[in-house]
């Protein structure tokens, strides 16, 4: 039986990738962030899964606004790294696991989650930065194949936090019903609090973020009870993307063990968080 080995929640701010790509991780503006990643990276290097699921959103790179799927899943053999306007990041293309993708798709549709299927998809920083947070020096290839799950967090109405959490729970059941005996790492990406536009641009809410970092482990159902309005008000118009962490969390067991967490600001305009959980029974 397949199961989730670990869950990694992390911001996917493009500048984190840029800081790594340009060798700025020792820069005083960045050092604390990358020092904060070190314990998680060390643990992850010792716990390589067979496959990873990355829950993320595209930022006007792989998708435009012609079609705005609320939830989507990639079923491709591989996912090229998108050119976001200044050339693609110099990181490996992402290898897929179509067999697992199709199994997850069928299980989720059977449970009433009608995901849009992406047979071709270029992946942007929303997916590649979390992979870099996990694996700073991938060499020629990322540690394992990846199944992308996409969430619309850019255009209102975003799915509710409750729906994301329920999708995560269905995803967990789908993983555990996979016939292959594989271990799965799941990444929930985005956040934490931030707002990019409007006169409230630059809004950051460390108290909310601290609450979220704690409850994502201990009481995700409470977070799933937050409305869109509360999320936009308290986490900012872009901070609402934290709902993607709930998909990760929902796929994990009720009790998880925290390996490491860290909070840093600012990563460009954003509060950046990382939280790594071991899904194996303690």
């Amino acid at each position, binding site marked *: 039986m397949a199961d989730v080995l670990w869950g990694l929640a992390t911001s996917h701010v493009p500048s984190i990738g840029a800081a790594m790509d340009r060798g700025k991780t020792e820069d005083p503006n960045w050092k604390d962030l990358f020092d904060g990643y070190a314990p998680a990276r060390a643990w992850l290097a010792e716990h390589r899964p067979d496959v990873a699921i990355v829950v993320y959103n595209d930022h006007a790179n792989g998708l435009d*606004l012609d079609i705005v799927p609320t939830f989507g899943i990639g079923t491709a053999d591989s996912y090229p790294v998108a050119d976001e*306007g200044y050339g693609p990041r110099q990181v490996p293309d992402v290898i897929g696991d179509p067999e697992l993708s199709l199994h997850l798709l069928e299980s989720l549709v059977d449970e009433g989650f009608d995901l849009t299927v992406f047979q071709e998809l270029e992946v942007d920083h929303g997916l590649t930065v979390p992979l870099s947070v996990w694996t700073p020096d991938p060499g020629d290839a990322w540690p394992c194949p990846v199944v992308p799950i996409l969430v619309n967090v850019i255009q209102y109405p975003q799915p509710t936090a409750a729906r994301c959490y329920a999708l995560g729970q269905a995803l967990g059941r789908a993983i555990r019903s996979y016939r292959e005996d594989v271990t799965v790492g799941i990444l929930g990406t985005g956040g934490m609090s931030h707002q990019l536009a409007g006169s409230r641009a*630059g809004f950051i809410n460390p108290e909310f973020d601290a609450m979220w970092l704690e409850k994502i482990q201990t009481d995700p159902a409470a977070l799933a009870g*937050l409305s869109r*309005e509360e999320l936009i008000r308290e986490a900012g118009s872009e901070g609402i993307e934290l709902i993607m962490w709930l998909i990760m969390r929902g796929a994990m067991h009720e009790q998880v063990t925290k390996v490491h967490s860290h909070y840093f600001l600012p990563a460009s305009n954003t509060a950046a968080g990382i939280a790594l959980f071991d899904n194996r029974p303690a």
Partner: protein
Amino acid sequence: MTAVLTAIPTEGTSMSTHETGGRLNVPGTPIFDGQTSRRGLRLNKMLMSFRSADNRERFSADEAAYCAEFGLAPEQTQAVLDRDWTAMIDLGGSIFYVYKLAMMDGRSMQYLGGVFTGMTEEEFQAELRAGGRRDG
């Protein structure tokens, strides 16, 4: 903040997904909703086209003609030509799309943040480094 902490039920979940019949209103916060996206579709499609170097070149050669090609409304074209970032957002631009034009101009997200809040880029950056901005 206290509002949300008290709004979190201690057990179980409560879905409060139906804000109101009207559009969501959070002060100082553009909500990129369906109406906004309808209004901004042509503009956003043009901004999306800047993913390709060829298109970036063609735009730079004749910005107004390129806007016309994408069918922008006159006020959207004006906002683009003037680099009126606030107007672009008001006229339906999504920040992720508008940012593509800013990047072409060598502008950062902190520069845009400064424009949106009436600060210089340095002042905006300093507020972020000091822990970010709060409400009000």
